[in-house]
């Protein structure tokens, strides 16, 4: 129960992070509530996979979250006549590994100082954080781009849902 509440709280704030970026990118007003929902969805998937017994790992969880947002943005774009990237890009911004990027940078700076006993440990940590940062960013970008390409359509307007033509 506690974990569920923690996931919900993080997802709730992910929605606001996405909304802030949506407005920073000057997204249309009619898209803003979908952007919040997209950020919330990204948070639910990412933290749902990371913090529960599933233990998905941060790279896979971020990838799954961005694929989820990428897929969800297609029917939303279809309905609201706005390109899917308008929702999907701000919605996945909360997945950006800011803390890992920061730790990587700090690690590289420590490595510039004279060799100490903990040099090998710092080197290992820095490469670990750097690899996570790189792969999370690639996972997010690919995750958003893939759903459109899997469907192999140039425009979401050409993707049909159910019986409606």
């Amino acid at each position: 129960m506690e974990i569920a509440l923690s996931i919900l709280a993080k997802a709730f704030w992910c929605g606001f992070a996405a909304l802030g970026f949506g407005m920073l990118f000057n997204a249309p007003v009619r898209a803003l509530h979908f952007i919040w929902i997209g950020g919330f969805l990204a948070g639910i998937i990412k933290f749902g996979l990371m913090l529960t017994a599933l233990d998905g790992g941060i790279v896979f969880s971020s990838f799954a979250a961005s694929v989820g947002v990428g897929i969800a943005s297609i029917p939303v774009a279809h309905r609201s006549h706005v390109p899917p990237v308008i929702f999907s890009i701000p919605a996945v911004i909360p997945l950006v590994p800011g803390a890992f990027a920061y730790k990587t940078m700090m690690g590289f700076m420590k490595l510039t100082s004279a060799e100490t006993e903990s040099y090998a440990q710092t080197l290992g940590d820095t490469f670990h954080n750097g690899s996570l940062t790189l792969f999370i960013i690639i996972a997010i970008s690919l995750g958003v781009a893939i759903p459109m390409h899997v469907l192999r359509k140039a425009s979401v307007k050409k993707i049909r849902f159910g019986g409606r033509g």
Partner: protein
Amino acid sequence: METSEWNDAKQMGPFLLNAAVALLRSGASSDRIRINVERLAAVSQHTLQISVSPLAIALSLTDVSGHILYNGTGTIPAQGVNFQVVSGISHLSWDVCEGKVGETESWEKLKEILAKPHYNRWLLLLVVSIAGAAFCYTFGGNASEMMIGFFATFFGLFCKQELVKHSYNTYIITYVSAVTAGIFVGFMHLIFPQLKMEHAFSTCVLFLVPGVPLINSITDLIEGYTLNGVARGVSAFLHALAIASGLVTVLFLFNII
């Protein structure tokens, strides 16, 4: 609408070029620009050739026998994200394609889209600062760190808005904004040394993250626009470097390293 009214290439060409340049400037991926402009051009009987470069568009219109009717190029000073333009032109391209608007009306609609204002500055500062606090929470920050993250983002974005008005180099703007946001956290650290600041410090600059160039870079690479993908990736990397340099400067100033 009469389709024939679009058949003057001297009118059609500049319209397509303006739309393509606006999309490039507003942060659309290369293939999105091509698809939108091709959709607009489909209403005429001309054949469109378009080349999308990182900071320029070149397009030509030819008739059925291959004679060039229009040749045009357009450049942009720098890219800035504006999803209202991306969304508006996409919508307009469908209206033109489906014959809902004519040539004169399309020009007017394009001008309308380009003239649409950004969100109110103070509203933007408030919402993006809330986003900064939200980032802080999702990375494990507590209430006091969220508050510090809020104000650090506020001052950082305020600084960025001021610098943008003076058209400084985009990477310098990112660097100075990161320094401003970081300095606020640094001062808070001096005033309240008992408070944890790590999360606030690492997340107060996330409003500067080049999310759109980063994702467009991968999209362009997947779609075969390798040159544009690499250019956008390098630009995103330079922004990340500017953010990191800003934070390092603050750590140095406050003697934390």
